[in-house]
């Protein structure tokens, strides 16, 4: 091929390059028109969660980023705590055989007659939701699961969200990274309008 061949090839190269440039730029512009500068994080909506237990096992990390937290604000400080004691517990005591939590992560502290405070040791909690189930079924639902952002890797797609049977996990704005139970009338509006649930 002579000089003509070369210049023809150069010409093709340049024009394809220009078209690719426009294509990539167009894709970028289209994306940018829909992009948010504000990042999102993954979070569990405690009102949707049905305590299936997958949070403990489906996180990409061996120790799940999901932990149980206690919304003291709505706790009844019950003596007979549905989240602390097994339904068939022999007695209202702190013996391991009476506790619902498989890792004994919850401690029961006497405050005053007849109230007890329940405190979760996050280091021990595995996010299995057993206590949440008990508390939601028999109590106020003050125990609930949350993705803890000091542990969460903020995966591109949360592995738990994919398998959550209640579609309780979605992207929410980083500005309000927690959906905490508590003041009931406030919480539902915390969800930003543009949050995208996966499905």
């Amino acid at each position: 091929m002579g000089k003509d061949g070369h210049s023809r090839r150069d010409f093709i190269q340049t024009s394809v390059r220009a078209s690719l440039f426009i294509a990539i730029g167009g894709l970028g512009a289209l994306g940018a028109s829909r992009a948010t500068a504000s990042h999102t994080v993954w979070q569990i909506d405690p009102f949707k969660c049905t305590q299936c237990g997958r949070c403990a096992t489906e996180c990409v990390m061996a120790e799940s980023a999901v932990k149980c937290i206690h919304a003291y604000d709505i706790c009844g400080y019950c003596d007979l705590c549905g989240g602390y004691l097994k339904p068939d517990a022999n007695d209202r005591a702190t013996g391991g055989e009476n506790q619902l939590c498989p890792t004994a992560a919850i401690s029961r502290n006497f405050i005053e007659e007849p109230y007890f405070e329940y405190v979760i040791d996050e280091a021990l909690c595995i996010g299995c939701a057993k206590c949440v189930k008990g508390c939601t079924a028999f109590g106020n639902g003050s125990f609930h699961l949350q993705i803890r952002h000091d542990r969460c890797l903020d995966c591109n797609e949360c592995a738990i969200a994919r398998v959550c049977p209640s579609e309780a996990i979605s992207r929410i704005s980083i500005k309000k990274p927690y959906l905490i139970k508590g003041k009931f009338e406030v919480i539902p509006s915390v969800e930003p309008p543009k949050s995208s649930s996966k499905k």
Partner: protein
Amino acid sequence: MKILMKIVLVICLMWIVMPVSGQSQARFPKPEFDTGYVQPDPSTPEPRALAMDYFDVFVLILVLSLATYFAIRRRSRGGILLLSVFTLIYFGFFRNGCICSIGAIQNVALTLFDPNYSISLVALLFFIIPLLFTLFFGRTFCAGACPLGAIQDLLIFKPISIPVWLRKGLGLIPFLYLGLAVLFAATGTDFIICRWDPYVGIFRMDARFIMIVLGVAMLLIGLFVARPYCRFLCPYGVLLNWTSRFSKYHMAITPSSCINCKLCETSCPFDAIDIPQEQAPASARQSDLKKFLVYLLIIPLLMGAGAFIGYKSHVFLSKAHSDVYLAELLIKHPEVKNDIDNLDVQAFLSAGETLDTLVKKAGVIRAKFKTGSWILGAFMGLVIGVSLLAQTTHRKNDDYRPDKGNCYSCGRCMDYCPVEK
């Protein structure tokens, strides 16, 4: 014991009787404490600051610029090596391999197809910037700025040369992977690139067992088959390959002009060096031309066959989406409703959604899969056709030069060239 049972019973009764509508009321009112007990607040540790994300974009641009400078200007393999160590440590081990440009394909796909999803600007930039660099300078992203590339590149031990037919054959996988990833992301089904990223578990030093096994296996394969993920899996590599072919300032093996000394011939662990080729004799060109025309005619057939296969597999593929899966399960086996161990079914039942709405939702998703699958099939047909077509064109070539599409600009071959500037 009996007392306890009674209390439980009473509570259960209370629970049934009490209105829980809207969950607006606590069953047990918060007590008033006499002892001055103050209730603690639940802690809410902050997520990683957004500013750090933009810092990542800054680091990406910096590393890309340096990699480009080392590959094209300085022609320094050492510089690129240092950069890949840095990338491995920073984007790999420190940032846990997330977000990455490869995974960002899915965010972009989801943005294009789901109007409710808004991509984060950081993910968009991670997707766009390396492509733009590649369009001008070749795949310097692969050389120095990709953590997956870096971990593979640093662990090449005794690369074996892979025969062309096998390379081309396996080279079709990334196209399929890309197509499936886009299909699954666009339908909101799954982010398969992230889920099956073999190295991310190693970056995090924490993953499920199967992923660790996969990661270690890939690293072991990589000792002999250099960069196995990059070459035979990476879906972003498909896009980089296309753009790199038309790059303007791609690195060259020789600093001035090739003297055909053959010293670099086997230097590339990825078989990405084009060796000089004579102009084929007229007879061969004749038969090549015939083949070319035949393949050209075959392409529509391949595309049709692909579309057919894709269409046929859409029912199967759509089952990856949980709604479709659940709807089908409930229709085919209504008895699962009584299976208390089936979490998905139980959650569905307790949510109070009717089967009708679920089936409707599933229908919409399956329709999307129908369209997506035949397009994907036709696309694969086109890819196979074009790669056959490429076998028949032998361009005359006087020099040893990197094959721009497949070269990672790693710089190894440059050190073999005896020619001075």
